[in-house]
């Protein structure tokens, strides 16, 4: 036996909290420019988990097959000692194993941010009907899925597909003309697509374009997460603050999303450059002035999403400015005017910390708002109300004026909710049922005997499959409860049409009862008046109705004069109900009325105005469930067409 080996073991150690992995901070192209090369690498701290080669973990599985090349690339083993010892593989464009490491690290960071904001574990959306709606433990990531300038989340396969492509030969930006651009190496693209998957896990009807805002919200929200995730990385932030002397509104890399992706496509600057643009004449970057009319003009989902990003970014800036006002006064002896030249490193450090705190707050706010959105047909106005309501639930007292900042920023971008009396925070908050209805519900709710049992145990340590199974069971109980006669009678409160006289365009079950679905049951944390943490139950209930482009056909189907047949579109309704488990009362009921003719007309108009170019030959994607909404959304960028009839 070699002498240097000992048989005495130390006490068992706990696993480390994090695994450190190196990634590109932006994308590889910045490494080729001298001024950005130093900040283009960063080390992410990913929550520690047992990993198999792939990497394959609890949430993700990276499977590197490349069908276009008919190749596979060996799966990286992040537990390999050389890799562990050096905080992961060196960033390298030509090494597929590094690509696998990077998509894993960035996607896990995004997941971690969601779990932290929501205080519960995240689930992917369940598999489709053909797979028996089974539980999907892991999102699959294909880093080299196709040869095109495209990257998308596939709701059908529960997978992220990243493309690679040669950079344009005429306008390659910072890329090597003809050199290969990998979308999976763009930090923002990975965070963006992961967010699509996370959002789909919460709201699987948000992928259906039922109004001009639904897909735009998906795109905008994904950009928001990517953007504010950047702001939470201190080293890059310090560098930016030094460059911009604390003024984050001026040109900076952090705000320009998806640099490489956009440049390689041949358009100058970033593809989704939400916050400003480069003046063609002077070559100088100028921030976008808020224009309330812009939202009326923008139709394409990315363009509309950019307006949402800009509004949230404005809110972030005013929060940041209010937080650093005192620091600037201290540093400038009360003048608030910074002297020429570089600012003091201590001040840079303090400003960076304030910026990170503001960013983290805004990111949390934006993610938490998802629990307060209607389950279907969401629009930007709904999202604003959800933001304000969710923030009030977490921070009852708005003494820093964050909610005002958000409302003001949205107002300046022309985003208003429908059907509210004023833009005060109080009137923007969602309301619950009032008076007799509230009373009726309060009496009926205990009918769900297991209501408090339903309160799922979603803490961050529970097995995710168990959580999912419990959700299914709770959903069935609530479904049965809704079918009981006294509850059916007041189902209109939930935006549902459950009575026998509901329009016959709503599908029926074998007993002739309109079909509906309990979409989701999950807990949401909130802070009570005396500071204790309370749990609400979020219940999403949805229903669908056949919609037709021709109003006379709609009327005939509604009345049962002709058999329904294939619809031109599906109108979905329903609501998100937040139940206070301790008081047994409904706090909010955020609904989209099923029987609303106004909604029907609006969706008909939208459907007509937005027929996808591929609809002529490949069928309208909205009529079919078997489509990839994001694949075509991104491809359409290349074949933009004018609306015709």
């Amino acid at each position, binding site marked *: 036996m070699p002498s240097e080996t000992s048989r005495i073991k130390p006490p068992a150690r706990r696993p480390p909290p994090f695994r450190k992995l190196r990634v590109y901070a932006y994308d590889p192209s910045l490494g080729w420019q001298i001024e950005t090369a130093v900040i283009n690498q960063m080390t992410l701290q990913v929550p520690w988990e047992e990993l198999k080669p792939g990497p394959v973990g609890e949430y993700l599985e990276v499977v590197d097959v490349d069908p276009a090349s008919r190749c596979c690339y060996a799966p990286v083993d992040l537990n390999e000692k050389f890799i562990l010892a050096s905080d992961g593989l060196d960033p390298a464009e030509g090494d597929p194993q590094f690509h696998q490491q990077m998509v894993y690290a960035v996607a896990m960071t995004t997941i971690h941010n969601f779990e932290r904001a929501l205080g519960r574990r995240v689930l992917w959306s369940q598999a489709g009907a053909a797979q028996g709606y089974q539980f999907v433990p892991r999102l699959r990531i294909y880093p080299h*899925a196709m040869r095109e300038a495209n990257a998308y989340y596939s709701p059908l*396969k529960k997978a992220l597909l990243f493309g690679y492509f*040669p950079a344009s030969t005429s306008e390659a930006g910072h890329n090597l003309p003809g050199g290969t651009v990998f979308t999976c190496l763009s930090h923002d693209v990975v965070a963006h697509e992961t967010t699509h998957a996370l959002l789909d896990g919460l709201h699987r009807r948000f992928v259906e374009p039922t109004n001009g805002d639904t897909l735009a919200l998906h795109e905008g929200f994904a950009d928001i997460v990517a953007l504010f995730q950047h702001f939470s990385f201190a080293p890059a932030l310090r560098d930016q603050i030094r460059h911009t002397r604390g003024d984050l509104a001026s040109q900076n890399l952090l705000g320009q999303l998806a640099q490489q992706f956009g440049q390689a496509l041949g358009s100058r600057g970033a593809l989704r450059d939400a916050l400003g643009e480069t003046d063609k004449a002077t070559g100088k970057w100028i921030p976008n002035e808020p224009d309330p009319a812009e939202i009326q003009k923008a139709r394409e989902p990315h363009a509309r999403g950019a307006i949402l990003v800009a509004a949230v970014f404005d809110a972030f800036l005013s929060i940041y400015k209010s937080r650093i006002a005192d620091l600037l006064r201290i540093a400038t002896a009360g003048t608030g005017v910074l002297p020429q030249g570089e600012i003091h490193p201590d001040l840079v450090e303090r400003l960076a910390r304030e910026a990170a705190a503001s960013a983290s707050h805004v990111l949390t706010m934006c993610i938490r708002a998802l629990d307060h959105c209607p389950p279907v047909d969401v629009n930007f106005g709904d999202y604003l109300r959800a933001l304000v309501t969710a923030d009030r639930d977490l921070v009852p007292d708005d003494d820093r004026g964050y909610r005002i900042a958000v409302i003001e920023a949205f107002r300046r971008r022309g985003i208003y909710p429908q059907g509210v009396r004023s833009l005060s925070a109080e009137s923007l908050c969602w309301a619950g049922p009032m008076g007799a209805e509230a009373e009726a519900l309060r009496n009926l709710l205990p009918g769900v005997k297991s209501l408090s049992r339903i309160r799922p145990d979603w803490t961050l340590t529970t097995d995710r499959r168990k959580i999912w199974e419990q959700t299914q069971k709770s959903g069935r109980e609530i479904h049965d409860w809704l079918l009981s006669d006294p509850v059916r009678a007041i189902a209109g409160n939930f935006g549902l049409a459950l009575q026998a006289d509901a329009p016959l365009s709503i599908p029926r079950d074998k007993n002739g009862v309109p079909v509906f679905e309990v979409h989701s049951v999950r807990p949401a944390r909130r802070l009570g008046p005396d500071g204790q943490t309370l749990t609400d139950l979020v219940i999403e209930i949805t229903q669908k109705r056949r919609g037709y482009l021709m109003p006379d056909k709609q009327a005939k189907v509604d009345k049962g004069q002709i058999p329904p047949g294939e619809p031109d579109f599906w109108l979905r309704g329903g609501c998100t109900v937040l139940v206070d488990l301790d008081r047994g009362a409904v706090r909010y009921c955020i609904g989209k009325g099923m029987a609303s003719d106004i909604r029907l007309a609006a969706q008909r108009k939208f459907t007509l105005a937005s027929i996808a170019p591929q609809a002529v*030959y490949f069928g309208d994607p909205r009529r079919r469930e078997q489509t990839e909404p994001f694949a075509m959304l991104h491809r359409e960028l290349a074949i933009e067409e004018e609306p015709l009839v």
Partner: protein
Amino acid sequence: MSDPSALMTAPESGVKVRMYRQGLGDCFLLAFATGTGRPYYMLIDCGVLMGTEDAADKMRRVAESLRDSTGGRIDVLVATHQHWDHLSGFDPAQARDVFDQIEFGEVWVGWTEDPDNELAGRLRARRRTHIQALNGAVQGLRAAGSGGKAGALESVLGFFGDLGVDGKPSKIEAALAYVLGRGKPLRYRAPGELVGLPGSGARVYVLGPPQDEAMLLRSDPSHKASEVYEQRLQLTQEAAFFAAILADAPVETLIDKETRNLSFPFEEVYRVTYDAGKGDPFFQERYFGEPGKPPEEDWRQIEDDWLGAGETLALQLDSDTNNTSLALAIELSPGGKVLLFPGDAQVGNWLSWQKLQWPGEGAGTVGAADLLRRTALYKVGHHASHNATLRAQGLELMERPDLVAMIPVDEQMAHRPKGGNPDGWDMPFSPLLTRLKEKARGRVLRADTGAPAPEDLDPADREAFAKDRIETPLYLEITIPA
């Protein structure tokens, strides 16, 4: 050999317009009044969609009727664009021998068919490469087990007829070449021209195809750089995609070795072949499944996803070709009624008309908007699909109370499932049809269902409209007085 009683006469003034009913495809015969007693005959297109039953018999009956109705001489033949549903009649397997019996005067095609035009040549080369690659994509999808997607894609390629192999012209190219060869003389028409029809007072304003490449390729911003297809593919996005599709094809002329090698994302040392991957436990468990067994989660495989880009390419190819349509506005008398024959022009073609100006009566000028306002007959583009009739700068400008619309469509054929697209094609597009009926006060003639029912017409129009038209199983005909 022709039957004199079958002759199509011209009205006292103006024109008779006959739409043949061969199915989903265009064939229009126009007889203009002249002073001589013999009408001036114009034929616009003659084809039917690939896959139509008894296509040859149907097209022969049409061609025989064309021969007999014109006494065997057609003064001008207009071929709008290179799609099978507009030209199939000239194929030897359909009715070419009947056309051999007809004497043609002029033949008009768009400048995009001119072999000496440099831009036109580039467009054609591009089209050939795209067709070839897309055929490869169809094969690839079949091999990946996605017969549905393959069928949907193939149905779009059907517009080009069968593909020529080994550099020989395809059937559609051969049909067009035949048409070009019959012209005495052959005229390549370009937008901005104004051509009188001899003997009649009618004049033809040429609207499209646009000569501005950007307009022609509108819907394809990535091709502003025109050097891309000049000779051989450089490593562009499409080239990388095509290189993958044509991986097994010996098409060195299209994709050279170096391009093919560069199109791989990684150096050879990193590449593991599919065969090796299928033998590896990791890829078996996560992707391929064990030998002989389908993988547990086969629904998550991505074997055909990368071919989805083919759908985009097919759409581009189709709309690019539709945009090469020779679009004509035929004015019956100076400042009078206009017949609008846009071929299958799509958005870029329609928009380009706005820039055109012709000298008008006196000091004024004539623009596209004026011609649209005076339109009395609109041949609805692309079988009334949603993407070939411009709204604000198109249909909404047509304001004559006596507007008539003719739709060469076969709804049943269009709605037939196309591969993985169970609904088929939405032709006619119902909101467009509804608006056409409103604008034309019910005077919408469809090749499939014929003339409108009396109750669809304004009571005041019924009698006059019935008097103006003829309906037979073979064609629908309407008189437009000058």
